[in-house]
């Protein structure tokens, strides 16, 4: 099973997200992550969808998405020609003796400590999926209290745009 990243421009309207996510569930496609936000044009949103499956599934996902009236354009973002990013907020147990170690690790990963509390530190970390996963692994021994990940977002490298 391979992973494919699709960048999908859609009409910024009520119900579009439901149509797209509904498509995945009713056709039994596996979705790894889906993120949505407005683009430079407020009438258009961009969905970045990570799909897991074989070539057949990927082709079908693409074609079925294209059938949705609200979908304007679909581009596959291949790893070698794209920038993938994800942001995670990790709230980790931080006993006094661990605080500096957590801070150093965060720094190595170019993370930022965005909240300090009596028992926890919250680290903001950005990167590709592997980097975030690696950071999380390193935080596990301290005890992750809570975590939020944005899901993958991506753009093509270079001067080209998909819109």
């Amino acid at each position: 099973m391979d992973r494919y990243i699709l960048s999908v421009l859609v009409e910024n309207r009520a119900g579009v997200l439901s149509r797209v996510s509904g498509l995945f569930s009713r056709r039994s496609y596996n979705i790894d992550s889906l993120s949505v936000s407005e683009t430079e044009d407020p009438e258009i949103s961009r969905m970045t969808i990570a799909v897991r499956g074989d070539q057949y599934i990927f082709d079908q996902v693409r074609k079925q998405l294209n059938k949705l009236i609200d979908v304007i354009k679909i581009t596959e973002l291949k790893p070698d020609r794209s920038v993938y990013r994800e942001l995670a907020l990790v709230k980790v147990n931080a006993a006094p003796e661990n605080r500096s170690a957590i801070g150093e690790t965060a720094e190595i990963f170019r993370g930022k400590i965005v909240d300090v509390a009596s028992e926890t530190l919250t680290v903001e970390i950005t990167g590709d999926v592997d980097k975030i996963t690696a950071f999380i692994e390193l935080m596990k021994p301290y005890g992750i209290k809570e975590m939020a990940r944005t899901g993958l977002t991506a753009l093509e490298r270079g001067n080209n745009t998909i819109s």
Partner: protein
Amino acid sequence: MKGAQAIVRCLEEENIKVVFGYPGATIVPLYEALRTSDIKHVLVRQEQAAAHSANGYARVSGTTGVCIGTSGPGATNLVTGIATAYMDSIPMVIITGQVNSAVIGRDVFQEIDITGATEPFVKHSYLLKDAEQIPGTLREAFHIAGTGRPGPVLVDVPVDIQKQDIDFHYPEKVVIRGYKPTYNGHAGQITRIIRKLKSSRKPLVCAGGGILSADAVCELRLFAEKAGIPVVHTMMGIGALAADHPLYLGMVGSHGHPCANRAVSQSDLLVVIGARIGDRATGGKEVFAENAEIIHIDIDPAEIGKNIKPIIPIVGDAKIIIRQLADKIQPLETNGWLEQLHTPQNKKHTAPKSKKGTVNPAYAIQLLGSMVDDEAIVLADVGQNQIWAARNFELTGSRKFLTSGGLGTMGYSLPAAVGAKAGAAGKTVISVVGDGGFQMSLGELGTISQQNIKIFILLFNNNRLGMVREIQDKTYSRTYGVDLDGNPDFLKLAEAYGFKGIRVACNDDLEAAFTEALNCHETFLVECMVDPEERTL
């Protein structure tokens, strides 16, 4: 003008002459606007029938069918009819009333999220938020429903919006940036197809419902004749080529004609046009067209590669692409292939014997086919009656055959016949039903009576759900839950609605009964008694 009047104006702009519906509280403003318009409203007896009637109307008239329901249960009753239209790619616009927009989401009386409920099986849907959206939305809805691969489009209209004042302006153009169907076939692909056809020794066309929805029957015949390619079809493709044409080989699939299936498996090049080659058409994917390379022509790119893997795919309108192909094709050397196909085994059976007190349904349908005119419209329900009708009613001339091919919706035939009659008043309309499906739509006898239309109802009564009985017998050697004990006296029932009818219990009486039914000026029920053990094939 009020929003409701604007909706009616839109329907007029779209040249809609008849709508099928069932009113309720949240759609009352629209009904008031309809009352004073020239659009005919057919009151059905349950909303599902409104959708099936619109379906039958669309398929016979070649335009988009319109049905109307109220919010809540009115809308949910439409659901099966919408799904039926979706699976068979029937152009339809569904207008539903919705509760007051200020209270949407509060679970008020007769509120349901119908755009949400129908999302998996509409081509598109809208929930209006402002009456100013009415003209643009309906313009788009009709455009989307009727172009590209046709399908149902739902427009949900809150009752307050129907009462809101607007300035009416019907947009001339539709611009939807995410919707641009491809019509012309790619020239390079056309050339590749022609080259492939030339090198083929055993080419075969498999025609689907797309031939009919693209109005490409004539083009297909000309192409097949010029090239000398024989034609098989799917159930939705019945009528794609006249059954008495020398190149006609019959229906493919698990319930198809053996000669057609044999042709598919022997062919070296299968040209699939406007068919999705669903599981019913392949009868088991692995063995379908095992010796053939496949060319797939479809207006929906998502169908290409979904069920079958073509060596040459081409996206576009069947009518245009077949014309493009016919322009470039030269007669192919298929004489040897055609001789091989027209073997004596391909000939049809004539009337076999039947048990005492019953008729042979296949024979009954064949006989009917020999008696009706060349413009007759047959609507088959679902179950054994569907297969008997599909395999044995010969589509010649401009006859039509309508059925729920994709969803397989029992109860389709009778309400769809009402719609077909509305779309083709002068033509003979025959509803073929079993005693199960007939009772799913019995209420429509009231609609037929009220509309004072003539429908020939051919009922096959085996007092059970015959096809399920057969599956159970084959799988478990016993049956359960399929006996329809408690069936009424259908003739008396017809009589209660003011219709004549006759019961036939032997093959020899069929002809007289059909003659009486065809000559009668009113709706007529012919009830054929069928052996419960009668097989589908």
